[in-house]
């Protein structure tokens, strides 16, 4: 890596911890920094309610935001390389639709939190499995996989519509609807461990193979001639990415745009080399979601659905990136 990207990556890596601490200090409940510090490290005399606020409410939520932001951004970056297409994110494989359906199904039958997460997982993997099956049956070219992803997403979206129709407006329907808009309001320690573990494992995997991801951007012929076993490599990337996204959707619902826009911002900053792109995406993703979630829970007495905030920010951001892209290619003034 040449100097400029390396410097940029180091700067980027320092930002999320700062935002994390800020997230612990900011909220509708005014907390003095020294009280927060004491509560966090179990020192001294802090009122129970403050301790509970910092340790049981804000801390798990900030962790969830950081993990989910990281997962979505890293998976998005990896998939953009894998499909050689900067316009994809995890939705292309139907992961999000599958996870959404799984979660809604579990919510419909008022299952416990563990079952909800498990269901999100299972159906996300099922969605990707179906796409893989289509690819296996009809030849795993990118075109086939993309169409397979569209079909599988459409299937799960239709089933999701059925769930919403059947759900009781006096029962679980408002919960399901709200959940589908994305939000971290329900973050608590009891549901966090799977997310933390899978984020750790997934991120480690992608950091280890980050340079090799560059090889996936070459044509199949070129990559094979460089000694790369493309099919298993691709499958590994897809499986690990799916697991990270499924764990994220199980906790936070449908949070869109992070996987699509953050890798672009990162690429604009550190270039397309995944050696810098992966850590940069992780940092920017975590930071972005920490900021947006802080807004979601602080701006109004009620929760603003996170998916709405990411959309409101994501769409103009993407538009600006798009303009920049066109100007760079000289196709517009």
């Amino acid at each position: 890596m040449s100097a400029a990207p390396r410097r940029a990556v180091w700067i980027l890596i320092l930002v999320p911890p700062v935002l994390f601490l800020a997230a612990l200090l900011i909220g509708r409940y005014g907390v003095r920094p020294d009280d927060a510090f004491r509560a966090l490290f179990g020192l001294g005399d802090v009122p129970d309610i403050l301790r509970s606020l910092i340790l049981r409410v804000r801390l798990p939520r900030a962790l969830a935001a950081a993990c989910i932001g990281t997962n979505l951004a890293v998976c998005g970056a990896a998939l953009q390389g894998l499909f050689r297409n900067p316009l994809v994110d995890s939705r292309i494989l139907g992961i999000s639709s599958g996870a959404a359906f799984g979660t809604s199904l579990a919510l419909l039958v008022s299952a416990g939190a563990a079952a909800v997460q498990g269901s999100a997982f299972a159906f996300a993997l099922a969605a990707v499995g179906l796409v893989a099956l289509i690819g296996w049956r009809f030849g795993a070219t990118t075109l086939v996989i993309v169409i397979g992803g569209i079909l599988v997403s459409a299937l799960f979206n239709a089933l999701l519509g059925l769930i919403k129709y059947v759900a009781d407006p006096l029962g679980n329907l408002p919960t399901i609807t709200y959940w589908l808009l994305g939000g971290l309001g329900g973050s608590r320690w009891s549901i966090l461990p799977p997310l933390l573990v899978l984020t750790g494992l997934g991120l480690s995997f992608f950091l280890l193979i980050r340079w090799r991801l560059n090889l996936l951007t070459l044509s199949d012929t070129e990559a094979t001639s460089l000694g790369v076993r493309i099919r298993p490599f691709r499958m590994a990337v897809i499986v690990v990415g799916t697991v990270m996204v499924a764990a994220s959707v199980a906790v936070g619902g449908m949070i869109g745009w992070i996987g699509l826009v953050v890798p672009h911002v990162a690429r604009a900053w550190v270039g397309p080399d995944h050696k810098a792109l992966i850590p940069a995406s992780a940092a920017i993703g975590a930071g972005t979601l920490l900021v947006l979630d802080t807004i979601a829970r602080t701006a109004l007495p009620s929760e603003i659905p996170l998916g709405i905030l990411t959309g409101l920010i994501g769409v103009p951001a993407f538009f600006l990136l798009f303009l920049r892209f066109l100007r760079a290619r000289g196709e517009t003034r």
Partner: protein
Amino acid sequence: MSLVAESIRYAYRVGHDVLTDVSLDVEPGHTLFVLGANGSGKTTLLECLSGLRTPRTGRVLIDGIRLTDLGPRERACRIGVVPQLHEPVFSYTVGQAVLMGRAPHLGLFERPGRKDRQAVARALNAVGVTGLHDRPYTGISGGERQLVLIARGLAQGAGCLLMDEPTAHLDPHHQHDVLSVVRQLADEGFSFVVTSHHPNNALLYADEVMFLVDGAAVVRGEPDVAITEDSLRSAYGMEFEIVRGANGSRAVLPRVLHPTAPTQDAESQSD
């Protein structure tokens, strides 16, 4: 690195042979040009030689070892493929692109180190494009891009490079740049198999020429011997004439009537 193909045959579908009984032999320092019409099997031949496809019958040997006995990495350390030019999606720098050639030398979870960066520098130097290291691949000329792809093959550590129509899309100056680098590398001991649509380039740069017609190697030999009006006719299905320049060089011209020239001019120019 010596590359030998013995009677290879390949078919995509049973009964439809794309290559029949093709043999070749490329020694270190040797450049073989493979000429043939579209669909004559040139690309398939390259794919069999690189190990991307396995011949139905016959075998390919690199330094005396059967290609099928080598794993993908080991193959990649010996044979490199220089593909046709194409527009990449992401704008890697030249340095990053050539660095990808180090893949066969790196473990699954390894990242390139100093040794690899040195190999890249050497490769860029060998083809004469050291100054382009930090330029985006998408921002250099076609000829320079082709040289960068050759550098990547060198960074791989390959002794034999297979080039698929390296002069397609290049203007005459860049064609010369690329092929003279090939010539020069061959002098340093590398071997090349080059597919081409340009018999004239073969005349200028090849040590050996092979014509593929419908998957069969109809002629093989030194350019002056292999490239004749007969072999050209059977390869491309049209008439050519071979003309001699003042300094003894030869060129291939399609035998067509110039719209404004009188017919006797065509005859007076031929040898």
